[in-house]
């Protein structure tokens, strides 16, 4: 039965590769659809997911990725073009599966009321300004996110 207070999901998105961007965005969309409150803390390379320019260019790493779409021997992974090929392949798969791309997932998150916390420490370390991020991003420190996460029913680190 629906409870008086909605359930809450707190996610940390710490990785900025394309394949690691999707899981938190998918979980957030699903949870919001259930009527849950959702907040995602985008930290370190995960901040790229909120970056207006970079989030359109997230890549799949070919090197040191044994789960590549097509298994690539480690030495081949260092060759020029392998990251581009792996990225193009994943983008093709997502499109064929009719899944939203990263900017579309962020639109969907915004429509669903998902809170997008942009880690202020990462911004300072990496020289990222609030104007570099999508307007829905809330610049916040770890404390503000922990305050949100303290009441979470589910907390996950991605």
């Amino acid at each position, binding site marked *: *039965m*629906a409870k008086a207070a909605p*359930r809450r999901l707190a996610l940390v998105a710490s990785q900025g590769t394309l394949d690691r961007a999707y899981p938190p965005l*998918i*979980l957030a*969309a*699903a949870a*919001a*659809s*259930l*009527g*849950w409150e959702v907040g995602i803390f985008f930290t370190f390379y995960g901040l790229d997911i909120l970056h207006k320019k970079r989030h359109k260019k997230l890549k799949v790493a070919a090197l040191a990725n044994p789960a590549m779409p097509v298994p690539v021997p480690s030495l081949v992974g260092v060759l020029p073009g392998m990251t581009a090929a792996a990225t193009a392949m994943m983008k093709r798969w997502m499109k064929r*599966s*009719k*899944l*939203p791309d990263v900017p579309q997932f962020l639109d*969907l998150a915004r429509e*669903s009321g998902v809170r997008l916390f942009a880690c202020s420490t990462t911004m300072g370390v990496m020289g990222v300004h609030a104007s570099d991020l999508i307007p829905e991003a809330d610049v916040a420190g770890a404390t503000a996110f922990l305050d949100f996460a303290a009441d979470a029913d589910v907390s996950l680190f991605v």
Partner: protein
Amino acid sequence: MPDFTSPAATHPVDAELDCKGLLCPLPVYKTARALTPLRRGQVLRIECTDPGSLADFPALARQRGDTLLSAEERNGVQIFLLRKEA
């Protein structure tokens, strides 16, 4: 758990949603959107082909507090009748 005592055919349907060809989280997302304009007690019929849907829709009903009136699979298509309760 869904109540399978009421066959799908006997339930009047107020709205329909085609989620065939869509993968998680889109069927659940679109279902939530389709439920928004419905009133309490109205029934949404959803068709899916994501095999995860058979596990997801009972969970969706439980989490939202809605009632899954029926869940069945016909020719690779999962058909759900969901009654809005809240």
